């Protein structure tokens, strides 16, 4: 018997996992060479801080995609959590945060139930909640942006521990938890089995419906957490623009990171790198003051190129 092959993927397998690594490398090199003030600690820190919400959402998305699903409602869930924060801030920051996360969980329960028990196609179920939750968020906030001057919330959004921003720490924690869940926990195994072959998972006696609901709840809670983070950083809750179109960035990050949309396989680290790549593209575009149109076309090109490199692997 040759040893354990999936246990510890060596560097080469990881690198082969996708075009995302060379793409990041190229962009970094380009920026170090041609972007003034790029290779500074503050700038790198800034990129990490800015990518944090997307990265958190993307990791939740990766888990959902692993079950052959998709969650379009993450952006609206962020808005919902943003809308709830100022409403409950009166009871203190933590209760408000808990309420926001619970709302994320509730959206996840709805999504998961529609997919698991209602047998709805995930893209349609979550499209419905996308529209409805954004509306709900706007109703709750009466459509208005609410400024918040709570110091604790400000700390959450802007402060660092040992030089690492709290939001980045949160990303690391979420990533670590997700990696462990996928590689070591029964939950991750169930999730992959459900995504890989739902009928087989059912016949193996796995709690398929419970797994599906849990995955959407995780995604919802992570989206809500991202909503709290970005709200805290901004010092204002803006339910009309919070998380707008973030679902597309998150899905792109997941796919660019090497997770196939067909389910059954998940790359958490790749997802993180995918999110980072998207952030780097944005940073490059803005710092070089490219016009909006060029920026979009460039983004399209890089995404296709990065995924093209890893093609075939995702089909197999």
């Amino acid at each position, binding site marked *: 018997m040759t040893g354990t092959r999936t246990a510890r993927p060596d560097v080469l397998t990881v690198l082969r996992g996708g075009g995302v690594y060379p793409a990041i490398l190229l962009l970094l090199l380009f920026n170090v060479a041609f972007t003034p003030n790029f290779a500074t600690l503050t700038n790198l820190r800034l990129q990490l801080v800015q990518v944090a919400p997307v990265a958190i959402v993307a990791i939740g998305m990766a888990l959902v995609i692993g079950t052959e699903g998709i969650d*379009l409602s993450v952006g609206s869930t962020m808005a919902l959590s943003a809308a709830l924060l100022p409403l409950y801030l009166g009871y203190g920051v933590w209760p408000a945060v808990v309420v926001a996360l619970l709302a994320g969980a509730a959206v996840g329960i709805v999504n998961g139930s*529609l997919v698991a028990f*209602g*047998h*709805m*196609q995930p*893209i*349609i*179920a979550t*499209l*419905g*909640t*996308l*529209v*409805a*939750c*954004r*509306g*709900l968020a*706007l*109703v709750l906030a009466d*459509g208005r942006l609410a400024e918040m001057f709570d110091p604790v919330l400000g700390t959450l959004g802007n402060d660092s521990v040992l030089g690492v921003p709290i939001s980045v720490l949160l990303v690391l924690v979420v990533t670590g938890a997700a990696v462990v869940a996928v590689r070591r926990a029964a939950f991750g195994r169930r999730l992959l089995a459900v995504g890989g072959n*739902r*009928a087989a998972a059912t016949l193996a006696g796995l709690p398929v419906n419970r797994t599906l609901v849990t995955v959407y709840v995780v995604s919802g809670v992570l989206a809500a957490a991202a909503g709290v983070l970005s709200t805290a950083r901004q010092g204002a809750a803006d339910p009309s623009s919070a998380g707008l179109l973030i679902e*597309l960035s998150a*899905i*792109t990050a997941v*796919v*660019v990171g090497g997770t*196939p*949309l*067909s389910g059954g396989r998940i790359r958490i680290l790749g997802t993180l790198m995918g999110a980072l790549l998207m952030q780097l593209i944005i940073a490059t575009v803005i710092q070089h003051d490219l*016009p*909006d*149109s*060029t*920026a*979009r*076309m460039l*983004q*399209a*090109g890089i*995404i*296709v190129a990065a*995924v*093209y490199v890893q*093609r*075939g692997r*995702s*089909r197999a």
Partner: protein
Amino acid sequence: MTAVETTAATTGHRTVTGRLWWRPDRAGTPIVLALVLIVGSLVFGDSFASGRNLGNIALDSSYLLLIATGMTFVVLSGGIDLSVGSLLALSGVLTAYGAQWGTLTAVLLPLAVCGVIGLVNGLLIGTAGIAPFIVTLASLLFARGLAFAVADEGNKVHLIPADLALTRLGQARWLGLSAPVWFALVVFAAAVVVLNRTRFGQSTFAVGDNLEAAGLMGLPTARVRVLVYVVSALLTGIAGVLVAAQTQSGLPTIGEGRELEAIAAVVIGGTLLTGGAGSLAGTLAGVLLLKVIQNLINQVGTLTSYYQQVVSGTFLIVVVLIQSRLTRRRMR
């Protein structure tokens, strides 16, 4: 003469006759649509059931019908096309841009560009094997970027002269219905024939049903998968031309979120997102259902726009749930 016809096997004769029980696959959405129409007429009376209002619904539906028709081909083949919203804008901008050289360029330029983008989508998906979601997501970005570039970052809105043949055509009315409605219906009818009565159409179903098997059965799977994206892009292109002709201008900002609306219409119409099963008739019903519901929600003057969103999102879910209950298709 085939090998088998002569083996009139007389050994064991076994009947595998199928019970053809009534399948409301096709009927689900129209039933819901009919119900909604009846309820709408009862509740809102003439403000809903007037010729003018229904004509407006028809016009509004016509663009979506064109896009959703193309989307149906793509979804049936097991794919998805997220680029249509941006393509709609791009096509409109190019129509207005091309209008300075006359109607012919105004029509051909956007269709050519859309065709090329559809072809690239198709090649990346069908030949290079990249996931449709990500390819068309990239062209969503690309087409929007191009639309902005043509419109000088939105600084310049190209206009279509009022006296151009295109304008007159786009704003004509025949038998009480606007021209885009007729164009959409003609294109839709042609699409129905292509999907149901040609080998390309049948192959589209097969490819979406089981890609590997379709390949082993000798179907030109790559070609089919390329073509559906071209079809989708071209029909979206036509919709863009019509929108531009109607509004006499090309705006790079229109069409955002149209892709999701089109996908919703297709799915409400009973087409499986995983591909292989569905119908264009269902898509037509899906488009109308979406637009009628939107119209009805607008009729409730007291509903604030935020509540409108809550209602329409919930409605989408409920309609699809009812539709799938009625259909009871076994999903795998």
